């Protein structure tokens, strides 16, 4: 019985680790593609409106939406990474129990930004996390 539970937990952990790593790599790849475009938009707006913050922000508004969307996804990955790190380290105490629901909450917030394939992968992961550490995110530790 213990062996079966250990094997199941290990399989869930492997799945969580792969998903966390995959999301991290995907976000780094997206950043590598987006950053040069973003840098040019910022430089152009800065040159055009060096002393007018309102018009500067207006000029980069579209790019800023992408920047913020990627930021939400990165925050979700960071929380997920922390939760999985605690889990893999064998922390069965309060830290893991608190962090896992917060990672799930962040992932759900970022979910509309992802493609259908990513959402399907996250649904599996969220179910795994909910099963291992059910609860509600009260506050980020």
């Amino acid at each position, binding site marked *: 019985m213990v062996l079966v539970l250990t094997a199941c937990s290990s399989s869930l952990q492997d799945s969580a680790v792969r998903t966390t790593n995959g999301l991290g790599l*995907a976000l780094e790849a*997206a950043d590598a593609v987006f950053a040069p475009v973003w840098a040019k938009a910022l430089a152009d707006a800065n040159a055009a409106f060096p002393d007018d913050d309102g018009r500067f922000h207006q000029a980069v508004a579209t790019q800023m939406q992408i920047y913020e969307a990627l930021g939400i996804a990165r925050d979700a990955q960071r929380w997920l990474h922390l939760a999985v790190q605690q889990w893999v380290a064998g922390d069965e105490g309060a830290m893991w129990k608190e962090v896992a629901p917060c990672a799930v909450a962040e992932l759900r917030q970022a979910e509309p930004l992802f493609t259908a394939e990513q959402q399907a992968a996250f649904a599996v992961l969220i179910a795994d996390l909910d099963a291992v550490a059910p609860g509600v995110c009260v506050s980020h530790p």
Partner: protein
Amino acid sequence: MKPGMFESIKDAFAVLGQAWKAIPEIVKLFRPGKPTLDRALGESQAEKELRAIEEQRAARKAK
């Protein structure tokens, strides 16, 4: 890649979707067996670019 590729969020996440699809296969090639957790994400290049511009604008105002 065209400069106008990131004109919308949809375009940006279409690229993210393509990257996502390729990654599991790449990971499998280089990491057979039990996976280990990668390092946590640090500051992105996009975040660094914004911080640099904000610091530049703040310094200009301070003069």
